[in-house]
């Protein structure tokens, strides 16, 4: 039992904007009152729900291959064992333990990995089992799944829906992810999709059809989270048109556009490179079916990892740095390249500005989530700095002095005066991502919510304030005090289990026999062995 008194509460779901109220916790949940237990006096402090990261890369084969690839990165950031915590390494691709601790130490209590190929779902769950404190889940890669493309081409929408439900169950995943739909399949023969109307070689479908069908299926299955889309042409100059086409193709269906920063570029490949946020943000502003997360870039060294194989190859060709490509049979691909974003670089400055433009040009904070697409734009550790950039206009102006002046002049960023309030920050870092994910017990402090609470000392320097919360409470347990982890716990794995017609299994089994190298029976992830604390999120 726990009582938090005298704190300024920021709980946008319940319309509480900085009022001093008391919060009661019992049995891991927020309750109306408690008798006894510890009392935390949060006088002069800011109380928010635990942070929710709805798009990051923290577990599974791609993350782990990146770990294997970057000993030079790890060497710079060793994390020693403590009486409460396991050891590991940090920097751009932290180990599982360090991932959990560092999210928690920053006041984040929930995180979703954005791209797991179902064939390696077991791997992601194994890593989740070693990722302490936070609750987590993942989105299942489906945008290049050959079985799915065949059903779409054949007009078998019913069968498609049953298959998607089966695949979510088999992988114990949380949502449906599309990465460069169709394009990754084409990359398997060195091609790529250049528009949403290119035909996917050998399958007779277009990215547009994949986007439409899967967005539709997510709604039909009443999944808590809508189709989560990484558009075609990520990172390519002029790709804003593809992004616009994708949003239009959704045609009123719910859809979440991931790391939109990387998809908002004007110009032509190799020529101009400009920001086209204004047009895209305006479209999102006027279409309530759409939500976005940003994928903010910050300057420094990081590791790009993506289900978008051709993109990684492009990055490798530009930088000449080491390159990993993994094509996963019948399902997906992935690519990994170390990347350094430099403040003097024209393109990198433009990317940095575009992310901030998105934050500042979207009018409704409920449809936007803070993300760096960790670690693609930057490590999640950078979130407090992004918060400062949003809350502190002067700091932003100071930063403008150090970036490429030609590039920044072509964006609207120098003209933006908007400053986020604490209330709005609470929206884009917890309330909105929880709502977009369809998590009813997260992102707020109303009675019945999970008692995931972060308490910050007030500080004019918002980066400092959000870097080291005074207390972090997970499921009612005070885990972090004064910036240090005081005990190690393991959070839950969130997954969905939509119903399907078992008759579809016959087709799937046949497909497995022909094209997979793993037996149909050995494919699904066993709940009891791989999800130590499973929590099935109910379907409405």
């Amino acid at each position, binding site marked *: 039992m726990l009582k938090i008194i005298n704190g300024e509460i920021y709980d946008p779901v319940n319309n509480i904007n900085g009022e001093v109220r008391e919060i009661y916790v019992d049995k891991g949940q927020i309750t109306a009152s408690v008798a006894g237990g510890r009392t935390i006096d949060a006088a002069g402090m800011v109380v928010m729900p635990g942070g929710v990261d709805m798009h990051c890369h923290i*577990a599974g*084969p791609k993350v*782990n*291959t990146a*770990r*294997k*690839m*970057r*000993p030079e990165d*790890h*060497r710079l950031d*060793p*994390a*020693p*064992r403590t*009486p409460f915590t*396991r*050891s*590991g*390494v940090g920097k751009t*691709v*932290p*180990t*599982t*333990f360090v991932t959990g601790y560092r999210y928690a130490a920053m006041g984040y209590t929930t995180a979703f990995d954005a791209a797991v190929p179902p*064939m*390696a779902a*077991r*791997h992601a769950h*194994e*890593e989740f089992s*070693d990722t302490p404190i936070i609750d987590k889940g993942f989105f299942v890669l489906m945008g290049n799944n050959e079985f799915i493309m065949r059903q779409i081409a054949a007009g078998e929408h019913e069968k498609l829906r049953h298959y998607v439900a089966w695949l979510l169950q088999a992988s114990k995943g949380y949502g449906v992810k599309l990465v460069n739909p169709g394009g990754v399949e084409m990359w*398997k*023969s*060195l091609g790529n999709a250049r528009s949403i109307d290119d035909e996917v070689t*050998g399958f007779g479908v277009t990215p547009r059809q994949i986007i439409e069908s899967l967005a539709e299926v997510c709604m039909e299955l009443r999944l808590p989270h809508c189709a989560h889309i990484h558009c075609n042409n990520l990172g390519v100059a002029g790709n804003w048109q593809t992004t616009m086409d994708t949003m239009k193709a959704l045609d009123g269906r719910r859809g979440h556009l991931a790391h939109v920063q990387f998809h908002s570029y004007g110009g032509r490949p190799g020529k101009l490179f400009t920001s086209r946020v204004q047009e895209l943000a305006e479209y999102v502003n006027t279409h309530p079916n759409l939500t976005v997360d940003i994928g903010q870039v910050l300057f420094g060294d990081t590791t790009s990892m993506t289900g978008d194989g051709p993109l990684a*190859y492009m990055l*490798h060709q530009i930088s000449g*740095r*080491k*390159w*990993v*490509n*993994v*094509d*996963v*049979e*019948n399902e997906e691909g992935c690519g*990994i*390249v170390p990347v350094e974003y430099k403040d003097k670089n024209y393109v990198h400055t433009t990317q940095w500005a575009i992310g901030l433009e998105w934050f500042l040009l979207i009018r409704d904070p409920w449809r936007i989530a803070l993300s760096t697409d960790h670690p693609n734009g930057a490590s999640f550790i950078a979130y407090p700095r992004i918060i400062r950039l949003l809350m502190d206009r002067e700091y932003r102006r100071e930063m403008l002095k150090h970036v490429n002046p030609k590039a920044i002049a072509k964006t609207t960023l120098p003209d933006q005066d908007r400053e986020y309030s604490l209330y709005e920050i609470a929206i884009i870092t917890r309330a909105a991502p929880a709502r977009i994910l369809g998590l009813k017990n997260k992102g707020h402090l109303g009675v019945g919510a999970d008692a995931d609470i972060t308490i910050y000392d007030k500080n004019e320097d918002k980066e400092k304030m959000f870097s080291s919360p005074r207390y972090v409470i997970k499921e009612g347990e005070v885990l972090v005090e004064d910036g240090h982890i005081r005990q190690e716990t393991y959070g839950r794995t969130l997954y969905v289990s939509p119903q399907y017609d078992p008759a579809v299994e016959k087709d799937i089994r046949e497909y497995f026999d*022909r*094209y*997979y*190298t*793993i*037996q149909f*029976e*050995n494919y699904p992830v*066993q709940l009891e*062995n791989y999800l130590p604390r499973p929590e099935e999120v109910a379907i409405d």
Partner: protein
Amino acid sequence: MQFDNVVCAFCGCDCDDISVTVENGRITQARNACVLGKTWFLSHSAPAHLPVARIEGKTASLEQGIEAAARYLAQSRYPLIYGLSSTSCEAQRKSVELAEVLGGCIDCCTSVCHGPSGMALQGVGEPTCTLGEVKNRADLVIYWGSNPAESHPRHMTRYAVTPKGMFVPEGRKGRTVVLVDVRRTPSARTADIFLQIRPGKDFEALWALQALANGRELDKAGAAEIGLTLEQLNDLADRMMHCKFGVLFVGQGLTQTRGKHFNTSAAFLLVRALNRHAKFALMPMRGHGNVAGVDNVLAWQTGYPFGVNFSMGYPRFNPGEYTVVDVLSRGEADAALIVASDPAASLPGKAARRLAEIPTITLDAHESETTKIAKVAFATATAGIHAEGTVYRMDNIPIRLRKVLPSNYPSDEEVLSLLLARVKELKAC
């Protein structure tokens, strides 16, 4: 009783389509398994004679064994945990924690097989794929320094050569198979093209092929040095650049000969260069059934795939410094825990001798050279026969092992958990 879709965890193929027949508590048949797999299944079905624990050769209880082993380990300054490639990920995870608590080194068989492939990945990256991509798409399959017919007998028949795939409907006829090696091995029978290069010239051959893929010309002398004709080299490069989907499987002929990680780097760079012309992938022919798993477990827990040291309280990595052969042959390790491996038989003499000088503890289902010299030897159940667990295939695809026989022995994971708990008590942490 018959169990279907059983995983054979013997080699890195981890074929999961084995039908195992159990009669009277013994495995009598392992249908679909290759000759190595059959032996593995049948040899593990023999009734157990070994005591669960032995201390200096004398029978002991599990508790006594744990106590003795924990004391040896807790007292040591530079303990080594080694092996792990033939046990489950669950046991591997415990082993890493034990190494961390001990402040010791942990290394796996990777460091003496495909460590150089891991180092090439760290140096230049790796274009690769899962085995099903090979089955579905590969029209050019190259084995280099690998003899799958003997080391991975179903590799060709289940994954890479014979099966019909989505874009290779003709199966074997739709593929060109090339074998490159320093001697004619039984695998050459399956190959359309066998190229015998001079021993110790793998790097030069791969480097020359990369030059051809980069549009350079070579001279006859360069080719002769490698042991091939210029025509042979040009022909191979031409096939590589003009295939639809090529794959290069690299074996220990590359990783464990002079040049080691540079040989694999050369292979990786060749495949990287080929991707300008054709879709091309590469895959190390991982040997043991879960050697890829231990790389993965180590990577997600420590950031590094093998040869990890915890003496500073955090993981450090440096092949040649913290790797098994080095810490043993330099006489640094002062205690060793060997999990499901027989280094006393397989490591170079100096390293193997060190194991006999220090308190060595083993976890193994069988008697081996290492269990014979062990101060404490635990007999454990075999993952995939008597115990469930997770393994990773050579292409990093995870599979759940099935249990087909009951066992009186604890699993590696169980012994390691007990050991960990006791070591924590002794070290008061």
